[in-house]
């Protein structure tokens, strides 16, 4: 990533044009925050009926939810625009990308940025701010580091999922519906303790689509909890490894997709 100037040039135009319409931008941010709150409402309603879920109390589940949401929305802001790939394929814009001396993925990612998704980010941060003091954490430098690192590593993992889902669009026609199952299913699975799932499903959302690494497993470390069978808490330390593996898979898929596109034409 030697030279960011070219990407910055387009990005700054986009950011400027989004901020230009102050009122509608504010409404958009509010709307995105609303969606985030809505999802948390399910968790809240659940905890008006029970005191623990999957071995964690309300504060614990709120942490898992907030970390997952924060990671997802951070990834969505930065990399989320890759879901425009099918549109670009149809309009021939991808050819314009190929004719420039830049990486195609880089151009796709930076061709737009959805700042309004900051609303959902804010909800995640707010929930964290309320839940962290109540979760019974043994505070120290390790815990503080974890609090900062978890959403960042989570964002990296989700970003890889987005890129992999985008790569699939090179082969599928109208494939977004199909990949949504993994992207949004993954986000959903990441927001809850995976201890509620049976072992096969838990293995799938941990080792196949690393949703558990984005929030639940590292949160267990933070809380000092042991974790369920086959996916113990200490796996949480391997979240960065999961992120790297996820990106290797995503980039391999992306390169293959691009090869497929230039090999078969549009």
């Amino acid at each position, binding site marked *: 990533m030697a030279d960011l100037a070219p990407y910055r040039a387009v990005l700054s135009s986009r950011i400027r044009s989004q901020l230009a319409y102050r009122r509608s931008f504010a*409404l958009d941010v509010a709307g995105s925050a609303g969606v985030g709150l809505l999802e948390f409402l399910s968790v809240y309603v659940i905890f008006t009926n029970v005191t623990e879920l*999957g071995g964690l109390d309300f504060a614990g589940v709120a942490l898992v939810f907030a970390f997952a949401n924060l990671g997802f929305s951070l990834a969505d802001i930065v990399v989320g625009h890759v879901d425009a790939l099918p549109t670009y394929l149809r309009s021939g814009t991808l050819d314009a990308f190929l004719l420039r001396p830049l990486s195609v993925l880089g151009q796709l990612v930076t061709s737009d940025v959805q700042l309004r998704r900051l609303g959902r980010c804010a909800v995640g941060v707010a929930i964290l701010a309320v839940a962290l003091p109540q979760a019974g954490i043994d505070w120290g430098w390790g815990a503080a580091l974890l609090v900062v690192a978890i959403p960042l590593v989570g964002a990296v993992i989700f970003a890889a999922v987005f890129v992999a889902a985008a790569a699939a669009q090179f082969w599928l026609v109208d494939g977004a519906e199909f990949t949504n199952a993994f992207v949004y*299913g993954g986000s959903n699975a990441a927001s809850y303790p995976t201890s509620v799932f049976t072992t096969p499903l838990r293995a799938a959302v941990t080792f196949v689509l690393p949703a558990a690494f984005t929030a639940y497993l590292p949160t267990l470390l933070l809380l000092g909890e042991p974790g369920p069978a086959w996916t113990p808490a200490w796996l949480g330390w391997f979240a960065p490894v999961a992120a790297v593996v996820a990106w290797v898979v995503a980039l391999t898929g992306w390169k293959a997709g691009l090869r497929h596109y230039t090999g078969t034409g549009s």
Partner: protein
Amino acid sequence: MNPLRTYVVFAALGFRRYSAYRLATAAGAFTNSVFGLLRAPITMAVIGAAGGELAGYGALEGATYAWLTQAVLTPVNVWTWNELALRIRSGDIAVDLARPVDLQMTYLAADLGRAAFQVLPRGLPPLLVGALVTGLALPTTVLPYVLGLISLALGVCVSFACRWLVNLAAFWLVELRGVLTLHMVAVGALSGLTVPVHWFPDWLARIASASPFPSMVQAPVDLLAGRVQGVEALGVIGVQVAWFLGVLLLGRVVLARGVRRLVVQGG
């Protein structure tokens, strides 16, 4: 031409339009099943944490609830729909209004046609997966299914009436995204899509019952699962009918207002 036949034609068009998207439908059914796979265990875990029973849901009933919501959510179409708003914005609505058919009824017919197409290909797969993975607690007699399907049709109607009303905001607002998102959030929160309305704390339950949203999802799911039967079921259907007619009529009034504004303002 017999007006009823006209609407049947529109319904058939709605049906045919969606039948072309075979791949997307299959993909959608896959998504529904995946979500069911995730929500069913979560629901069961909540029930387990509550001691094995919560508001009349046992573990199996809870799982059934999760699978049924995935089965009905596509026909009911809880997500954003903005066809009408786009036509209002572009002015094409004038063409539609000039036709000798009732605009709202034609859209309703088309929506029912769409729902009719989606019921089986999007509804059955999650139920089949559910039956295999967690098992389903479904009624063994015929009547609950009859009432349930009636309730489902009404759920589609109530959902349509609300979406119609929300789209009419295009007569007054330039940027509709906020209103559409708000509607989607309200539906998601209050219709019983992710957690049953019966689990809501009192204050939220009161808000929900004062809204049409539970009639969209919770009602048909309850009836299809046999949770609500007999006379009580008829009561639920009655509530659905009341909301449907109420919001529908409101939609007609607002449309007339909007059209008048359009005509007065020109264009």
